[in-house]
C-alpha cells in the first residue's frame, strides 16, 4: 500500500482487514512489526517553510535530506541532529521525517537543545480506525488541549500513521569547534563531560569513545563566542588534561558507525550520567560509546546478552536496536496498563505496527 493522500490513507486503514507494517524509508528496522507494508513515501513534500518564524511543516514521507537541504539554503537546520541509522543497521533507502518522529530520533546535540519531540510543534495522523486527527499546530507555544504531539513522537506508529509534522527549526551557526581530551578512563571522562555541561559554556556535544580514548566537546555559535568559550573550557578542564583542537566528526558519534560491520547486538541505553561508567563496565560489552555526557550509552554486546539484567536499581532503560531479543524495555505494570489502554483507544483493532514496541 502506498497512499498518495491523507484521505486515501484514511480509507485504506479503515478498510484494512489485517495488520499493517508502517514504513517510511525503511532505514530503521527497530522492533518487529508484521503485516502488509504501508508506505508513507507517497505523502511527501514540504508544505511550509517560514524562516522568520523558525517553522517548517512537511508531509511525513518527505526525505530528511530534502528538508535539511531546504533549511540549509536559508541557513537553518533541525537542531536535534537526527541520527541516520543506515550504516549501523546496514540498510539503504532515504530516511523520512515521519520515521524520525515515529522513533523520536535525535543526535548528540540533544543534550543541549532537546530531543526531536522537543522541536515537534504539531502532527496530523490517521488512527487505527481511519480517523484523521490533528494536534498542536505550527506555533512555538501551544497548550491548547492535550499534547498528543509528544505522545506521537516515539510511538513507532502504534497510535496512528503520521501524515504531516511541523517543527521549530533553528539558525545554523557561524562557527563550530571540537576540542578533545585523550586517555581518560570512562569514569573520569564522564566527570569531565559533566563538568562542562554544568558550566555556562554551552557545549552542544559531549561524547567519549573508550576505544580511541577521545573525549570530545563541541562548541557552536558566533566566532568570537566560540573562541571565548574554548578558552573557558580549557581552564575548566585543566585538571583532566590538555584540551586539543581536533577535526570534528560528530556524524560518527551520531550514527554509531563504529559498530557497523562488527558482530553482536547493539544496545541503546539511557541512564543518568553518574551511573553510566559503572553500568557500562558491568554489561559485558565488547565496546561502548558514551554520548550526551554519559546519559546515552551505545553498547556492542555478544549476541544474546541481556543488558537489562544488569540494570538492578539503576534507573533508565535499554533498547535493543540491532539483535533478536525483546526490543523495548518492559514497563512497570501500571505504566504498561496505561500504554496498552492508549493503544486500545487509538488502534482498537490492533493493526498498526502490532507488537513493535512489545
Amino acid at each position, binding site marked *: 500500500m502506498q497512499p498518495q493522500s491523507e484521505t486515501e490513507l484514511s480509507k485504506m486503514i479503515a478498510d484494512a482487514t489485517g495488520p499493517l507494517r508502517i514504513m517510511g524509508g525503511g532505514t530503521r528496522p527497530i522492533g518487529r512489526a508484521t503485516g502488509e507494508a504501508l508506505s508513507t513515501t507517497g505523502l511527501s513534500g514540504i508544505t511550509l517553510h517560514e524562516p522568520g*518564524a523558525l517553522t517548517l511543516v512537511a508531509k511525513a514521507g518527505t526525505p530528511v535530506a530534502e528538508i535539511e537541504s531546504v533549511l540549509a539554503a536559508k541557513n537553518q537546520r533541525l537542531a536535534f541532529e537526527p541520527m541516520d541509522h543506515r550504516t549501523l543497521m546496514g540498510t539503504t533507502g532515504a530516511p523520512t521525517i515521519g520515521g524520525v518522529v515515529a522513533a523520536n530520533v535525535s543526535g548528540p546535540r540533544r543534550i543541549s537543545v532537546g530531543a526531536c*519531540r522537543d522541536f515537534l510543534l504539531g502532527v496530523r495522523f490517521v488512527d487505527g480506525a481511519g480517523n484523521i486527527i490533528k494536534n498542536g499546530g505550527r506555533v512555538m507555544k501551544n497548550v491548547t488541549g492535550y499534547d498528543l504531539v509528544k505522545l506521537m513522537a516515539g510511538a513507532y506508529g502504534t497510535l496512528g500513521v503520521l501524515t504531516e509534522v511541523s517543527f521549530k527549526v533553528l539558525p545554523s551557526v557561524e562557527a563550530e569547534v571540537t576540542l578533545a581530551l585523550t586517555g581518560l578512563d570512562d569514569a573520569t571522562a564522564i566527570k569531565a563531560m559533566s563538568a562542562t555541561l554544568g558550566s555556562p559554556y554551552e557545549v552542544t556535544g559531549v561524547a567519549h569513545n573508550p576505544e580511541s580514548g577521545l573525549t570530545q566537546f563541541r562548541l557552536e555559535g558566533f566566532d568570537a563566542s566560540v573562541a571565548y568559550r574554548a578558552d573557558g573550557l580549557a581552564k575548566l578542564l585543566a585538571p583532566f588534561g590538555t584540551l586539543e583542537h581536533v577535526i570534528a566528526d560528530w556524524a560518527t558519534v551520531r550514527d554509531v558507525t563504529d559498530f557497523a560491520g562488527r558482530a553482536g547486538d547493539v544496545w541503546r541505553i539511557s541512564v543518568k550520567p553518574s551511573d553510566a561508567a559503572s553500568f557500562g563496565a558491568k554489561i559485558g560489552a565488547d565496546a561502548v560509546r558514551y554520548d550526551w555526557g554519559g546519559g546515552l550509552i551505545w553498547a556492542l554486546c555478544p549476541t544474546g546478552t541481556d543488558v537489562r539484567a544488569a540494570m538492578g536499581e539503576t534507573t533508565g532503560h535499554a533498547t535493543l536496536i540491532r539483535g533478536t531479543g525483546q526490543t523495548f524495555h518492559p514497563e512497570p505494570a501500571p505504566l504498561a496498563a496505561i500504554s496498552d489502554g492508549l493503544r486500545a*483507544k*487509538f488502534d482498537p483493532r490492533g493493526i498498526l505496527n502490532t507488537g513493535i514496541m512489545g
Partner: protein
Amino acid sequence: MQMPAPDTRVFDRKDQIVAQLRAVLPAAAVITELSETRAYECDGLTAYRCPPMCAVLPSTTAEVAAVMKICHDMDVPVVPRGAGTSLAGGAMPTADSVILGVAKMNDVIETNYYDRYIRVQTGRTNLSVTGAVETDGFFYAPDPSSQLACAIAGNIAMNSGGAHCLKYGVTTNNLMGVTMVMMDGTVVEIGGGHLDAGGLDLLGVICGSEGQLGVVTEATLRILPKPEGARPVLMGYDSSEVAGQVVTDIIQAGVLPVAIEFMDRPCIEATENFAHAGYPMCEALLIVEVEGSDAEIDAQLALIMKIAAKHNPVELREAKDADEAGRIWLGRKSAFGAMGQINDYMCLDGTIPVSELPFVLRRISEMSKEFGLDVGNVFHAGDGNMHPLILFDANKEGDLELCEAFGAEILKLCVEVGGCLTGEHGVGIEKRDLMHVQYDAPDLEAQMAVKDVFDPKWLLNAAKVFPLDASQTRRAI
C-alpha cells in the same frame, strides 16, 4: 460561564465522604466549613467562583493516594490545585468537588548537579526551585510571570511558559520525571534522572493535561547552569509592522535572544504613568535580551543593534549596567499591574505565527473600536505568544460579557491565521467552549480518549478543557 449542575448524589453524602477523608488525613488537612472553603472558590480567573464541597491538604504522596482512592470509590469529583494562580480557571471548583491542594508539599527531595536535575514536591513554588540551586550557579528555566507564587504542580498541569522560553523552552522541555497519583489511587513513576522515555512518551501527554489525568506530587526538573550575564536592549518604533519586521530579521540573522518582548502604545502609556520606566512614547516597543559573557553579549547586541537601526527606531537604548537593565525591564514587568490600575482586565494568550503579528495587531485595534473596549498588547514576540489585555468594568452590567465576546473574537482570529487559543495559560473553563474553533470532533475525541484511559470515570477536573457538549456523555458515567 456554564458549569455542570452539581451532582446531588455526591452532595447528599457529604458527611460520609468527609468522615472517610478524615480517617486518612490529619484533622487540620480536611476543610469543610464554608467560611474556609471559600478560600478555594476561585483561582486567578476571579470572575468565576464556586466554593467546593470540601478541601483537603495532604502532606505526602501516600495521603494523596488515600484521598484519591476514597474519591474514586465513592464517585466524588476531584479538582487538583497548586497555588491557585491559574488565569484560565484550571483550579476552579465545582460545588460537588473535593479540592485537592498540594500546597503543603513543598520540599526539595534531591538536588543533583552532576546529572543536572532537582527533584521537588510539586507544591513548591516555581521561583523557589531556582532559589534552591542558584547559590550553586544553577537555575530552573521556565519563568511564568506568576513565578513568585505559582506551584510546580500547576506549571506541569498547564505546561507553563514564560518570558525566556524562546531559548529554554516551556515546562514540558524541562520536565524529566514525575510521581503521579492516578484517580484510583495508584501511584506511578514516570521518567526520572535519565533522558527520554523508554516506551510511549506519557510524560509528554501528562504535562499540559490540566490536572485531568492524575495528581503529580513529585517532579524531576532539569536545572541549567546560569549564564555568565544577560543584557537587554530597548527599541521603539513608529509602527507595529516595523517592530514585527525587526523581530523576524533578528531571528533570521542567527541570533537567538533569550527573550523578545513587545508592548504597544496603550500599554506603554499605562506603564509609564504607573512605573515611570522612561519608555519612549511610540507605537511599538521591543525589549530584546541576550545572554553570555560580556564579550558574547557585546557581539550579539552589536548585530541586533545594527538590525534595529536599519528600521529607523525612534529610540534605541542598550543597558550599560544592571541599573539600566532593571529600568528597561521595569515597565514590562509592571505592565499587568499598570493595566489593572486603569480598570479590570481580561488577559488572553493566543499564539500566532510571528509573520502575522502586524495583521493581528491591526485587527485587534479595529475590533477594539467595534466593541468599544480598550485593549493593550504586551507579549512574547519571539514566539508569537500574544497577551492582549482587554479593559472592562466588572461593576458595569454587561461589560464582562462584552469583554468575553471580544476576547473570543481575538482568539478565533489567532486560530484563523494559523495559531492557537492558548500559548501558556491553558484552556481551563475560560477557553473550553472555544475548543471547537481550533479542533474538529475527531481531534477532541482523540484527546478525550486519553482521559478515558487515565480516568475512566471522568472524576478529575472533568468540566474543563473540553466543551461541555463534547464531554457530556463521558461525564455522565
